[in-house]
């Protein structure tokens, strides 16, 4: 019999536990690391405070929400970090998406041809075949397959990187939490995994403030995790 309760893969911070042993070369190394951290934090604060063109939701500082330009240090012009240093117990943000442009007013109002086809797929099959509660990724895979997009992987959060690699079919945009209920039909929202929630969530906007996946429900906006939004072309 095999039982494995969900584990929370906390990443250890290499600086913790060695602060008390700062001397000689290791002390210099520690100082360099601290300077890098300060440089990173200054850069983050500058980009967050200086321009509000990101999602503007302001709910999770330090890059916990996706789509906030400059909110995560990946790609910033700074000294290379030895390794990412997420907060203990937190999953790192999904990579990518931080430079997605804000959604335009036109995109908010109009369904694209693929978006309309996705809406039709949802109307024809609000609960896709063999789709039970919690099978959100299965439901979304079903609808996207109907418009020629095949996704793989077992957990919902895994869709984000795949959709980002299909610029021929999807455009990633930055959307605030308040705007999520105004998404046009066919917009795909991918929620990242978070502590205790290792699979994330995925849904397709129906265009009326609701979302479709394993069933149709009101659009989720308050999940304590980061998210990415993809508009079908």
């Amino acid at each position, binding site marked *: 019999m*095999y039982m494995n309760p969900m584990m929370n893969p906390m990443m250890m911070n290499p600086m913790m536990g060695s602060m008390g042993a700062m001397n000689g070369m290791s002390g210099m190394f520690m100082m360099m690391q601290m300077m890098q951290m300060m440089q990173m934090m200054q850069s983050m604060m500058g980009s967050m405070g200086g321009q509000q063109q990101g999602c503007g939701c302001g709910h999770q500082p330090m890059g916990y929400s996706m789509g906030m330009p400059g909110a995560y240090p990946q790609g910033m012009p700074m000294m290379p970090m030895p390794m990412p240093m997420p907060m203990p117990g937190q999953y790192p943000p999904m990579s990518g998406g931080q430079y997605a442009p804000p959604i335009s007013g036109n995109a908010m109002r109009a369904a694209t041809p693929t978006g309309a086809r996705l809406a039709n797929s949802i109307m024809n099959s609000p609960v896709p075949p063999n789709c*039970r509660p919690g099978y959100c*990724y299965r439901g979304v895979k079903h609808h996207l397959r109907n418009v020629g997009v095949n996704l793989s992987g*077992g957990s919902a959060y895994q869709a984000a990187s795949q959709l980002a690699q299909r610029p021929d079919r999807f455009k990633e945009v930055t959307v605030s939490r308040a705007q999520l209920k105004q998404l046009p039909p066919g917009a795909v929202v991918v929620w990242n995994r978070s502590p*205790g929630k290792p*699979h994330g969530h995925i849904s397709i906007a129906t265009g009326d403030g609701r979302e479709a996946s394993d069933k149709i429900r009101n659009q989720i906006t308050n999940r304590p995790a980061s998210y990415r939004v993809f508009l079908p072309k």
Partner: protein
Amino acid sequence: MSQEFSYLSAQQRESLKDLPFSVMLPSQVPQGWTVASLDFDQDEDGASFALGLTKGEARLNFLTTNDGIGDPPGGARTSRHPHQDLGEITIEHEEDGEFLSDWMEVEGGWSALAGSGPSDSELDQFVQSLTVF
């Protein structure tokens, strides 16, 4: 104490041995609950198993699958139910009364508990008797 899984017929218990994954089921069910369905589906998105139980309007599904899942959306409230081996099982309740537990890893897949209608004390009983078959 009654025999484990005695609420299932011998034929149903035998069919569980052919599944491509282990399943997490209650070893016993509280009084009044009966088996409504026992389903296994396999398609291009993977394999899926569900045991459905009902009691009046209340219904419960014990799910196991190996593909295409997400964490429970929740939204209304969260309830927590103790299990002697797993610690605490979290169940997220939605505004429409439906609920889904966090997914629990089993051999070859993931199991969860979903449904609507049972009281929290009944959920306690079900969770306490969860056993890998």
